[in-house]
């Protein structure tokens, strides 16, 4: 199986005005093609930093990161990034928004693919609407399509659902999972929500408190189905779900007082 992403002894220290911040320390892991990996960790442990490294927005202090075998040094075409907020530009229509990445990268030939995505995922009828006219879930879908439009090999999702209310969140997680599976994408899904992390991935990586280190890295297996096909909402009923939840909770040191 092709390796899409690899962290090789990566550490990152931010140089801030009021001193150094050790964000990540000695990170090693890899992601294979088609794999969905959840990274779970407490706030401030360096999850966003980790994704920024993959996206080429910041450079590591030590170690190397490889995407599809190439060392990351700047923004790579193979990487698609979905931020916490949908960041849809309110002065553009939905179509204008999902075309943004293609415009920036000069990939107008992907327009057909965008049309296909909009049609497949129920946004074609909304293409002339503006973001403020769409529900939170629809907006998140539009943001996902904007990211998929540039045909990345790996997607990075940074707490992509945390701005949504709880009910919408459950639905959108299901939605995004299905889209990622249908488009056969690999993804790194970052979250501080343990249940959300378990519900969406094939594998779990747990980061410790800052400076973030990998404290757990294990594949998910369920009794009621394969992690490749078992959708997020259904997983929550699986007997093993609670066990994974508790393992991670204990690892993160969240105890009943």
């Amino acid at each position, binding site marked *: 199986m092709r390796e899409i992403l690899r962290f090789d002894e990566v550490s990152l220290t931010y140089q801030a005005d009021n001193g150094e911040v050790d964000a990540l320390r000695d990170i090693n892991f890899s992601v294979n093609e088609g794999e969905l990996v959840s990274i779970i960790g407490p706030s401030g442990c360096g999850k966003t930093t980790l994704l920024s490294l993959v*996206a080429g927005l910041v450079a590591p202090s030590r170690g190397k990161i490889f995407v599809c075998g190439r060392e990351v040094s700047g923004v790579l075409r193979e990487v698609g990034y979905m931020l916490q907020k949908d960041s849809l530009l309110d002065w553009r229509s939905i179509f204008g928004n999902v075309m943004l990445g293609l415009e920036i*990268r000069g990939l107008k030939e992907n327009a057909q693919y965008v049309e296909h995505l909009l049609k497949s995922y129920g946004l074609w009828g909304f293409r002339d609407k503006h973001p403020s006219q769409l529900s939170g879930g629809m907006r998140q879908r539009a943001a996902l399509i904007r990211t998929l439009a540039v045909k990345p090999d790996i997607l990075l999702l940074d707490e992509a659902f945390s701005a949504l209310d709880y009910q919408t969140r459950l639905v959108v997680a299901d939605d995004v999972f299905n889209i990622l599976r249908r488009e056969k994408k690999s993804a790194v899904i970052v979250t501080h929500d343990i249940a959300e992390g378990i519900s969406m991935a094939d594998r779990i990586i747990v980061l410790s408190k800052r400076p973030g280190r990998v404290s757990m890295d294990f594949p998910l297996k369920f009794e009621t189905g394969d992690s490749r096909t078992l959708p997020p909402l259904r997983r929550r009923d699986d007997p093993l779900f609670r066990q994974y939840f508790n393992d991670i909770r204990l690892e993160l040191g969240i105890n009943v007082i």
Partner: protein
Amino acid sequence: MLSDGRVKFLAAKKRRRVLIRVSQISILILTLVLWEGLARAGVIDSFIMSQPARILRTILNWQNNNLPLHIGVTFFETIIGFTLGALLGIFIAFVLWWSDVLAKIADPYLVVLNALPKIALGPVIIIWVGAGMQAVIVMALAISLIVTVMEMLNGFKNADPEFVKMAKTFGASRLQIFTKVIFPFNLSTLFNCLKINIGLSLVGVIAGEFLVSRAGLGYLIVYGGQVFQMDLVMTSVIILAVLAALLYRAVALLETAVMRAVRHR
């Protein structure tokens, strides 16, 4: 079918609107009537205070006193000064947004220049660019330039960082970040700025015309004062007020048109 409460609410709202409009118009009419009446009764000296009827006569006499020329000159100088001020202001703000170091270096100068009353530069401007229409235009430009730079730079710097990050994840260049995110994000800042600038430009033009000019409403006001023709002065002031209001409306209409055009892409 509207509920009783709704009908009452709407009626009350409408009554308020009518009351406000009627009051506004009444004040205007009352002022004019009082002014005219007092002048006719000889309570105020219409030679010094002028009088609505005489102002009206001055306006109707536009062929002899060359009013259209003076209005045209002031209008032209204002539009040119305003446009140049806006374009140059946006450009400088763009450069300062691009280079943070330049912005830091320029900061104290901007603050001082902003506080300086630009009218004081009048004589300097005349010596530098020559006494004539060009001096008036530069005056109009100078008065709106620094505010534009400061306002726009502030807007550019405060564009939503999440939008900027999103554009960066697609590998956007700095220029792309500006054209696709920063500038459109600040369109409303720009128009707020322009709405203030149009008034400022007019101030610059009138001040410039006071100092050097052979035509324009500012010239007419000074000339009317010198030859003690208060009718001409008052007429010019009133025309100026109308011109200012119309120019402001024009910018507001432009804003609506641009916003609509941008949203329809």
